[in-house]
Every structure is written in C-alpha cells, then in structure tokens.
C-alpha cells in the first residue's frame, strides 16, 4: 500500500491528528504534559467520552444519530441512585435494572426511527429532552433534590468499586473499559458480518436491503448499544463519585459526535472508524488537560476544540474524496 492509500483509510488520519495534538502540547505545555501523571490526566478525562464515541460512531456509520446518550448517562445514574438509596435495593440488582432500562430506551429510540422513518436526529433530540426532564423531575419527586450521594453505603459496593473505580497508579479503571469497548467495537466493525451490515446500512440502505441485509435490525441493535454505552458511563461515574447528578452527561451527545467526526467518521454514514472515534475522544482529553497544564484560561478550551473539529472534518473529507475517486 502506498503512503497515500494508507493515509486514506478511515482512522489512520485520526492517528496522525492525535500525534500532532500530543506533539503540540508536549511542546507548549512542557514536561508536565509529557509525564506519566500528565498522560493519566488526559486519559482519565477521555475515557467516558471515548466509550460513548465508540458506540455513537458505529451508529453513525450505520447512518443514524443518537442525541440522547448524554441524557441517558444522567438518567441511568439517577436511576441507580434512586433504586439503591431511595428504594433500598442492593447495588447489583439495581445495576441490572439500570442496564435493562437503558436498553429499553435504546430499543424505543431505534424502533421509533425504523418504524416511523422520521430522522433519528429528531427522534433522539426528543429523547434528549424527555430523559433529561424525567431525570430531574423524578429525582425531585422522590427526594426533593437533583444530586444524590452515598452509593458507597449500599450493599455490593465493594465489588463494584473494584470493577468500575479501582485505579492502577494514577490511571482510572474507566480507561480499561474504554480500551475494551473500542477493541470490541473494532472487532465487530471489521471482522464480523454485522460489521459489513453496519457499513452497508449507512452506505446504501437500498443496496443492503437488496442483498438481504436486515438493515432495520442492525440499526435498532446499535441504538441499544449506544444506550448501553451511556449506561456503562453512568455506572462508572456513579461508582467513582458515589453519587449521581441529574445534569451529568450534558452535552456529551455532541462531544461524542465530534469525537467520531475527528476520528474520520462520515456524518452521512457508511464510512468511519471505531479506533478513530476512540482517538477523537483522546484528542478532547488532551486539549482539555493540555490547556489547563499550559496555564491558559480553561475558557479557551471550547474555542480550540471547535477549531480542531472543523480542521479534522476538512482533512478527513479531503482524504476520503481522494480515496474514493474512480481510479
């Protein structure tokens, strides 16, 4: 493969971009960014978004959006705290119920999209409001508050802490979940039949249906997967912070889409990379921590990030065009 062809693969550009952003901050932010604790800082900051971005990227490759993932993070976290602290459930049955609730949300999102043929952007924008509102409303209704704590006093917490909140040195457990999630996603996308079906569903739903691919089932499964990714993030955060906040996960849906796009995923579907999306999230974390370490006011984070997003999208678009023009 020529260097040009290699660079044209989705995700490869993300590797280059990630290295470039790292190099930039390695210079301007200095040794603190290059150190182990610097690495831990940006990896810890990237992990939750990385988990969401992997699932969101796969859904986008299949041709759909899910704007509800941030709200589901808040909803699932609050559900876990209400079930345990308000209704007195032990932790593990509550986690099971939270997983089931999240899967149900994904299923409803997916079925609404494939049955009504409404754009998923609209359907899940609706879910974004519904589940954020429900989270705040239910939390107030049952407890009078929107922040709940004390998960560490619930039966079963010790095991959950080991699985979801144990640290290896300065590195949080969520990094491991992020890597595992990305590896599983990449395996599914590149090595299984479902992966081909995901790419085909987004690339040309008509051609996919004609070839016998269950396009609707593929898409609905991915809506369930994004909701489950949101649930995993909620559990990771609830266990680490021993509580929930009704506003947790806000704006994560857009950040996840941005991470996927930085990673080379096409907004119109059919093309993208799971590893790229995971790296896109890493770029977020590096920019966030890099700006803090540099000593620049954190207000500038979003400005820089927005510029990175547009630059990455432009770069990816150019590469894709070059890779897919008739030779």
């Amino acid at each position: 493969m020529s260097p040009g062809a290699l660079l044209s693969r989705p995700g490869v550009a993300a590797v280059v971009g990630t290295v470039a952003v790292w190099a930039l901050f390695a210079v301007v932010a200095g040794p603190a960014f290059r150190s182990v604790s610097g690495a831990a800082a940006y990896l810890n900051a990237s992990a939750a978004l990385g988990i969401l971005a992997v699932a969101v990227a796969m859904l986008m490759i299949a041709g759909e959006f899910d704007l509800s993932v941030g709200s589901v993070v808040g909803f699932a976290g609050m559900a876990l705290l209400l079930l345990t602290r308000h209704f007195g459930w032990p932790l593990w049955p509550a986690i099971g119920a939270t997983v089931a609730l999240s899967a149900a949300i994904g299923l409803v999102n997916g079925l609404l999209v494939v049955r009504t043929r409404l754009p998923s952007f609209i359907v899940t924008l609706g879910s974004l409001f519904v589940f954020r509102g429900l989270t705040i409303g239910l939390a107030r209704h049952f407890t009078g508050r929107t922040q709940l704590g004390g998960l560490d006093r619930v039966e079963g917490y010790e095991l959950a802490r080991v699985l979801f909140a144990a640290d290896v040195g300065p590195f949080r457990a969520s990094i491991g979940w992020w890597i595992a999630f990305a590896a599983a996603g990449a395996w599914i996308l590149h090595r299984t039949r479902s992966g081909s079906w995901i790419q085909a569903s987004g690339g040309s739903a008509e051609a996919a249906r004609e070839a016998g691919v269950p396009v609707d089932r593929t898409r609905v499964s991915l809506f369930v997967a994004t909701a489950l990714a949101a649930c995993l993030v909620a559990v990771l955060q609830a266990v680490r912070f021993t509580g929930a906040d009704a506003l947790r996960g806000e704006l994560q849906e857009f950040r996840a889409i941005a991470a996927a796009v930085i990673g080379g995923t096409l907004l119109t579907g059919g093309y993208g990379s799971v590893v790229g999306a995971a790296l896109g999230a890493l770029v977020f974390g590096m920019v966030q921590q890099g700006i803090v370490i540099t000593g620049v006011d954190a207000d500038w984070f979003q400005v820089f990030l927005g510029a990175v997003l547009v630059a990455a999208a432009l770069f990816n678009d150019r590469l894709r065009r070059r890779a897919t023009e008739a030779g």
Partner: protein
Amino acid sequence: MNADVATEASPPLLEASGVSKRFDGVRALEDVSVAVPAGRVTCLLGDNGAGKSTLVKIVTGVYGADAGEIRMEGEPARFDSPREAIDRGVVPVHQHLAVVPLMSVWRNFWLGAEPTRGRGPLRRIDVGRARRETRESLADVGIEIEDVDRPMATLSGGERQAVAIARALHRGARVLVLDEPTAALGVKQTGIVIDQIERARDRGVGILLVTHAPHDAHPLGDRYVVLRRGRAIAERAREEVGVEELSRLMAGQDGA
C-alpha cells in the same frame, strides 16, 4: 448449429408466455412471450415506453402479470417477490447498480452472504477466503483487481458491472437479467461488459439483455424480441436480421 438442436430439445431456462399487464387501465404489455435458453443471449429490444421494464419486473418478481405464465425449464413458476426470483436463480443486474460505494470491493461482493469461521462470539468473516474468492470470481468474468480492499467507488463503470455479474454468478444465478448494462458506459467499458456477458453465456447461463440500442445488442444476441407499445412485434434469430432492420422494427418504420 448443433447447439440449436440442444436448445430445442430441452425447454428454456426461463420463459414468459402470453404475458399481459395493465396499469390503471392503460396497457403496458399485451400477450408478450419471450424465452431465455441456457447458454444463449436473448435480447429484448424496444424504445422508451415499449414495455421492456414492465416485462423485466414481471420475470424478476417485482410485479405479477395480469395474464400469461412464467415457466422455468418448462414448469410453471410464480415469483411473489424479487427474493423468490433470486432464490430460483433469476437475478437482475440493474442499470443503477445496487452497490455500497464507500465499502470495499470484497465486502460488496459478499454482502448478505459473508463466509464465516469460528463460533459464538468468535464467529467472524473468513476475510482471507472472502478476498481470495472475490479475486477469483472477478477473474472468471475477465476482471483483474488485485486490491479488493479498494472502495467500490474507485472502480470504473465496467468493473462495477463486473462485480455485480460475478456476484450474481457466484450466488448461483442461472438467468441474468441485464437492464441496459452498457447505457452509461464509454466504448472501452462497453467492451469489458460485453466480454463479461459472453463469458457468462459460455458457462451456460441464460441471458436476457434489455436494451434500446440495437448496435450493442446485435453482435451479442442469439435471438431478438422487439417490443413496441406493449406488444412483441417481431422475433428474429441472429442470422435472419441485420442491425438496420432491428432499428427499423423498433422505430416502427416498416409498417408493422
């Protein structure tokens, strides 16, 4: 020709007999018959609106006919959906090819029928075999593509058609229904597609070639059925007819 004797002895692979179809009372097809024998190219000729597309949709299971019969190897057949027609080996290759442009050649080739190995969560596409068999099948229709990981969009029109034809043959097609396969192609690409059609024919596949271009059809066809305003106005063997006469028949300048 000896082969003629053979085809007359066994019933054609696919046959539409006395087929009629109306849409909202407007006649689209009236008592049209066409036979597609194995190893032969049968051309369906006609101008726009002559009824070619309607007949194609009937033999590939998109519509049912109002009257008449579809037979496969002499036995009455009924296709209630395109899927049923494909399962019986009648495979359409469309003018607007149903491919996924940004997906690789081999993934397109295998889409919906990917070969796998392993079990349970380790069940995965046998990528080595998928790539190898894609290359081999394309070579069988006369196309050499070394890097089958290229996106489909990077192929030329003729090569894309080749992938569609090779895929149909690989999945056991016995009758290929080619709807204007060379319509959007240049001279060189047309040559590639004609070569593919001849190779498929030589393997014993029955070919129904639908076109409004007698110049493309004439050198390839073994038989020509000319449609005009929903009726079959002429049926000729290759030896009986020249390009000019085919053009005249299509245009209706012979008084028929």
